[in-house]
């Protein structure tokens, strides 16, 4: 299994919408 790890997630806003079964990404999430 491939893994998208936390180094590559830095500064992205990662959004888990478990009820809708979707995962969101947005750049510049911390600032």
């Amino acid at each position, binding site marked *: *299994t*491939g893994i998208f790890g936390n*180094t590559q997630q830095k500064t992205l*806003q990662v*959004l*888990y*919408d478990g009820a809708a079964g979707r*995962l969101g*990404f947005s750049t510049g999430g911390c600032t």
Partner: protein
Amino acid sequence: AESHHLQHRHTIQVSSLLPSSVCSPAAQALDKKASLPVVHKHGPCSRLHQDKANIPTPAEVLLQDEARVKSIRSKLAKIYPGSSNVEETDAATLPAKDGSVVGSGNYIVTVGLGTPKKDLSLIFDTGSDITWTQCQPCVRSCYKQQDPIFSPSQSSTYSNISCTSTVCNSLASATGNSPGCSSSTCVYAIQYGDSSFSVGFFAKDTLTLTPSDVYNDFLFGCGQNNRGLFGGSAGLLGLGRDKLSLPSQTALKYKKFFSYCLPSSASSTGFLTFGDGGASKSIKFTTLSTISQGSSFYGIDITGISVGGQKLSIAASVFTAGGAIIDSGTVISRLPPTAYAALKSAFRKQMSQYPMAQPLSILDTCYDFSKYSSVSFPKISFFFSGGVEVPIAAKGVFYVSSISQVCLGFAGNSDDSD
């Protein structure tokens, strides 16, 4: 042509690759509801930073990261024995003194537990389910943690879960182990691939995320026998998909909706938000898939990778053969070897002006930037199902050991079907 070239490269000051020794908070979502600051476990923004003697070296972090990945593979293999070539003994023989499955490159949040609440710094982990913390009286063993160890007897809202309770049986899927029973109290046990573990009473108490977000009767593990370094944290906050995970337990309130931003460096801060209050309008969605061997993981479908604006020629089957997950606790992304080979080749080609350095553990593409004040390197994007392109931030391209050993922060699995 030059403009096109620059558009697809990052240019940064070399000095910015190393974290500052001073904390510079950067999170924006803290004014929103149910939002907690996220800090790197060993950075200057962390309360655990005081324990400097136990900060692992970059090479040790990578070793611990391998332990975590092996543990994930072991977990998948355990659920469906024979479905993988993973040698479980390989994972089981990793030394616990190297830390734990939670690894070292992890991020922590501080939550309150009990009444009155006691603050606990927990590693937040989308790759596991049960939340646990070390508990007094530590009947068998507790490792050293920075916060005072949670004392159930001092909480007016604490209660143990009975062995006959239906939620006791839910531990089997959340931990991979059948629950035990001691004096009518349900006993949980979670063991990780490197032999570290937490065992204790399954209990419930009030969980305080923020002063206005208080959750009663939160089910968690009250650890009486815990081994592993866990970096001085008080335990683990399980954000997986099992019904005992925090998102599932709080589903009525937050609809299994949470988001986070991991800071750009250990000297900055991010956030973890529950509920949809922190969602950016520019967010792009891909579908969460289910990994048949491990339904508590968040499965994702990687469809492609670009380097310097050019999409790599990788057959779709390379990504679909083994599937993929997103995990907040794994430091380095692992790719099918065919995909990693293509990424490495393209990256090296576009970095040919810089001297290479010795490999670092699992990282084989490293550079010596010691003679440069600024460097430029190709932008990398990941593509997910639904045509979603996610540009990796400049700080997400490299894993930095020192300025003379700055490594491409990706690694290959041993087999495309991993």
